[in-house]
């Protein structure tokens, strides 16, 4: 344990020394401070160095949890809160409350407008909400909360149902103009998928054949959608025209079936539910893939900062 602590201390000391040495070197060669018209831009230099130190402190968590990481994390939260409070004060509290209701008390030249007295209602509700921190009078905060919840629900429920449910139901069941032959093909494909889901758990050669055919079909569809520039794909894309809507509908139906918990998932319901699981997995996979991409973007941004703004290598 003592050895581990010593190792950690040595690693921290080495990292700090490298940071100091790197900044000293950059200063010596003239990269830092950033110069504008020959005048040292000290604030900008400090911003860059602070950014580098904070980045290093946050990245240190990859090694293990440590005081540098916690300090940077707390500083980040504190700064965020400070910025929010400042913005709220200058954008809302000062112009709409302080300047209108309170400042006139200190300035005889300005008087409170009669129409502005209505502001006392929201101010009073806001002050009541702050009583949440009191043990004795915490109950008072329930009144503004009840007002807020009631108002928000009344204001938003109708648009929410319209935008989040009806519009999506409409988009799901929208009529898809397709040739009758395509409809038959889609029906056969749906039957094939359902049969695959049904026989997959039973094993044997029918399951193997059905899995192979279904996977080939799914692979073909994915290829057409993912690589439309490949030779020959436009012809297939034409054949798959309109299939997206059918797949969407099939997905919605099978996923809804999966979430029917009042019936045992056996037989036809079991088969369709298994298909629903496939759709859910595809959806989770897409979300996960996008999340990984987002995190990569943040990492790339940090390295662009370190290599560009700090080291001037880009």
């Amino acid at each position, binding site marked *: 344990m003592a050895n581990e602590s010593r190792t950690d201390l040595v690693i921290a000391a080495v990292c700090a020394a490298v940071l100091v040495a790197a900044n000293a070197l950059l200063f010596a060669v003239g990269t830092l401070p950033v110069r504008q018209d020959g005048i040292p831009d000290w604030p900008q230099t400090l911003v860059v160095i602070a950014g580098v130190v904070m980045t290093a402190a946050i990245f240190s968590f990859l090694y293990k949890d440590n005081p540098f990481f916690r300090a940077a994390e707390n500083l980040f939260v504190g700064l965020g809160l400070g910025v929010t409070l400042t913005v709220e004060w200058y*954008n809302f509290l000062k112009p709409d409350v302080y300047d209108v209701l309170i400042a006139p008390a200190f300035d005889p030249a300005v008087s409170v407008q009669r129409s502005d007295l209505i502001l006392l209602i929201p101010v009073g509700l806001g002050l009541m909400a702050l009583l949440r921190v009191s043990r004795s009078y915490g109950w008072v905060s329930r009144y503004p909360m009840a007002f807020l919840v009631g108002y928000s629900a009344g*204001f938003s429920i109708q648009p929410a149902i319209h935008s989040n449910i009806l519009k999506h139901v409409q988009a799901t069941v929208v009529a898809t103009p397709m040739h009758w032959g395509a409809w038959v093909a889609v029906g056969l494909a749906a039957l094939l998928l359902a049969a695959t889901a049904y026989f997959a758990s039973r094993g044997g050669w029918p399951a193997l054949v059905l899995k192979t055919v279904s996977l080939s079909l799914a692979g073909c569809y994915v290829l057409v959608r993912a690589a439309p520039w490949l030779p020959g794909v436009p012809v297939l894309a034409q054949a798959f025209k309109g299939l997206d809507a059918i797949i969407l509908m099939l997905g919605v139906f099978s996923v809804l079936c999966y979430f029917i918990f009042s019936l045992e998932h056996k037989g036809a319901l079991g088969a369709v539910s298994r298909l629903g699981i496939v759709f859910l997995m595809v*959806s989770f996979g897409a*979300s996960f893939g996008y999340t*990984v*991409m*987002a995190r990569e*973007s943040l990492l790339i941004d940090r*390295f662009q900062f370190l290599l560009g703004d700090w080291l001037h290598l*880009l």
Partner: protein
Amino acid sequence: MQVRWTDPRLVFPLVAAAIVFALLFPVRQPIKPQQAVVQVYDYIERLPKGSAVMLAVDYDPQAKAELVPMTTAVLRHCLRKDLRVIGMTFWPQGTALGQSIFTAVAQEPQFRHKKAGSDYVYLGYKPGDMAQVITNMGENLPNTFRQDYQNRPTTAMPIFQDVKSLKDVDYLLDLAAGNTPETWVQFGGDKYSVPMAVGCTAVMGPDMYVRLTARQINGLIAGLRGAADYEVLLDRPELGVAGMFAQSIIHVMIIVLVVVGNVAFLATRRRRAREGERHG
């Protein structure tokens, strides 16, 4: 402390090395813009000169990596097309960031003739219930934001002479890192029928595609890849395109590591099974 070859911490320096390599020795990849991004570009391209476009800069510095390149590219496109741009935000921590983007783009040589208050304006942050604020904007836009970010009164601004409310806005683009697109769609798009698109972080991408399919938005720019697509369409590659090679390298690395990890897992399991058989 032991470091084994399967230690996950070995992945971190590998990824770091890959990104450094990709950024120092970039290879220009062919980038084919996605259809959803092309739709946003085409819509802005078709807007008549002088149309009003609202950019909601609904993010904070945490999403800077993905959304600043996107916002910059869209803003450049609008100014290049001589559209009037109205910027605002519902995120208090993103207020200054939005202003810095507007200032930086407006100071570029080709846009120096653009005037704040006439060709573009950044209104800043408006607190309160978002749905209510949008509804207020639908009734009277300059009254909702009586001053812009730099405390100039909006009622006297030429840009608001014929843009009295949100209903007069020709295109709305919410650049978001949170749940603001949902409310924008409900109240801006569906209630006031303002044509709109969304630019968002990659994490939000899959959720936003649902809105695209339901035709609640007419285009989508998702993540750094979306920003890169827009830069390509604009023929001005910058941060978005610069990050694409690094992202591709990491993708390849992740695939290789997943394969190696699974092979190692299977090999370990087989070895343990054999040892189990041997010991009875």
